[in-house]
């Protein structure tokens, strides 16, 4: 019996298309997560209906979905939906701030890692600054750049992104295995070649783990900065305005849009990470 099932199994392995099998494995891998998501939505819907919860406390998922579809329809048919316009504006603030803050963080880390004295002088301040709630500066940057200028939100996002990226990059550039450095010394490698061939590849996992966190932070930063005021077509302003006019299902569409942007941005960074570091431990299994 056991032999027969083995033969059947190996025959299946040979004939089944590897692509199809991979898809099936993927599906089985994500199945528990999908089930959790579906059951949370079902329970949410039921609880709201059964206990007759007021919609300003918690709208039904179906109501939120209806509002979302209505906005989508507006966007598709008339080419104008405040929700989608707001999403675009917030995305722009988040991505712009992410690029500026992340780029500056990596650049300054490269410079300071080259001159250790500077990095030793700067690191305590960077670590301290990293634990400051930078979002509290949003009213200040609103004053600096103007309430409706996207630069005021980008500035906040850039500062939020800058510190974790810079700190992690410095760590990745300096926390190199001593043996690997000695290997480079044995080749009489110049500091620049050590940077390029050893320190930067060594730092990549550190940089990307910071960028992944920063991608989520940048959307949070942009939306919260918009809570302090900004153009009408931004997610933060949209959510506060429709919530104050008791249109809670629509407010939730704003929240969901912000979540989608955050998740999408995170997945994009993850995708780039996988393309750039196919060797990395975390991708070896199930990748």
């Amino acid at each position: 019996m056991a032999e027969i099932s083995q033969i059947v199994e190996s025959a299946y392995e040979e004939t089944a298309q590897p692509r199809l099998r991979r898809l099936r494995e993927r599906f089985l891998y994500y199945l528990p997560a999908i089930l959790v998501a579906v059951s949370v939505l079902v329970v949410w819907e039921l609880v709201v209906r059964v206990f007759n919860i007021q919609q300003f406390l918690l709208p039904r998922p179906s109501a939120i979905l209806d509002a979302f579809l209505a906005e989508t329809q507006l966007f598709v048919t008339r080419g104008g939906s405040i929700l989608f316009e707001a999403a675009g504006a917030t995305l722009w603030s988040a991505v712009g701030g992410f690029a500026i803050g992340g780029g500056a963080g990596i650049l300054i880390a490269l410079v300071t890692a080259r001159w250790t004295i500077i990095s030793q002088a700067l690191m305590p301040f960077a670590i301290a600054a990293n634990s400051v709630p930078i979002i509290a500066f949003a009213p200040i940057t609103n004053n600096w750049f103007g309430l409706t200028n996207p630069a005021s939100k980008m500035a906040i996002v850039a500062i939020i992104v800058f510190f974790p990226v810079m700190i992690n990059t410095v760590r990745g550039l300096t926390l190199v295995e001593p043996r690997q450095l000695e290997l480079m010394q044995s080749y009489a490698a110049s500091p620049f070649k050590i940077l390029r061939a050893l320190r930067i590849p060594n730092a990549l996992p550190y940089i990307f783990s910071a960028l992944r966190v920063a991608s989520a932070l940048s959307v949070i930063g942009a939306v919260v900065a918009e809570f302090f005021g900004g153009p009408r077509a931004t997610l933060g302003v949209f959510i506060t305005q429709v919530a104050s006019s008791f249109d809670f299902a629509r407010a939730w569409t704003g929240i969901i849009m912000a979540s989608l942007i955050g998740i999408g941005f995170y997945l994009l960074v993850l995708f780039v990470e996988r393309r750039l570091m196919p060797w990395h431990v975390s991708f070896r299994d199930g990748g």
Partner: protein
Amino acid sequence: MAQATTTAPVIAAQSINKIFKPGSAEQVVALQDINLTVQAGEFVSLIGPSGCGKSTLLRLIADLIPPTSGDLKVNNKTPHQARLDRDYGMVFQAATLYDWRTVSKNVQLPLEIMGYPAAQRKARAQEMLELVELGKFANHYPWQLSGGMQQRVAIARALAFEPSLLLMDEPFGALDEFTRERMNMELLRIWQRTGITVIFVTHSIPEAVFLSSRVVVMSPRPGRITRVIDIDLPYPRVFETRELPRFFELVTDVREHLRDAHGG
């Protein structure tokens, strides 16, 4: 000039002392009055218990640390100049491969640093991988290889730029006995084919005897050379060499000197 460098010994160490943290309470005399000469083409093992300074001596030769006093010449130059001239290749106890590079790219690393053109790098890496019998694994990543295979890649990398001297710091210490014996055979084959000079640090007596033309016995605290034993086993050394009566005599000889050095 060329004549002078061919006749000069590869290693000439005179009255070398190495003291870590001199003058402090934790001062350690790692090496005391080391005198050692190694001629071109020799295979010399440094053997001794932990703390006898055998790795320290290797690192002095490699110019990874400076001696406290004494005169050390590598290829008739200061160790620093020898390092700048890329006179030696080094193999550590851990393979120390770069995870982000394929096997071939790892072997190419020193060639890249030294500015070889890309085509030559690739060809040379393949040649070296064939030498350590890993030609089929050029495009694998290090984590896809076993410990023994990784160490062979490290050897290929150390030989890639054709240094005249190979420094090996317990390269097979982390391998199982069976793999280690196979690696020993392979290393001897490479040594005989290339004519390279090898300084080999180990704490395995049979390994030292099997591989070497000379075994340097060291003792700890302070690290000193207590005895240099010529290994007169016939070449080529094969698997059966380990079963020769002379092999056992030499192993016993080294062991007794190690025990004397250890003070009983």
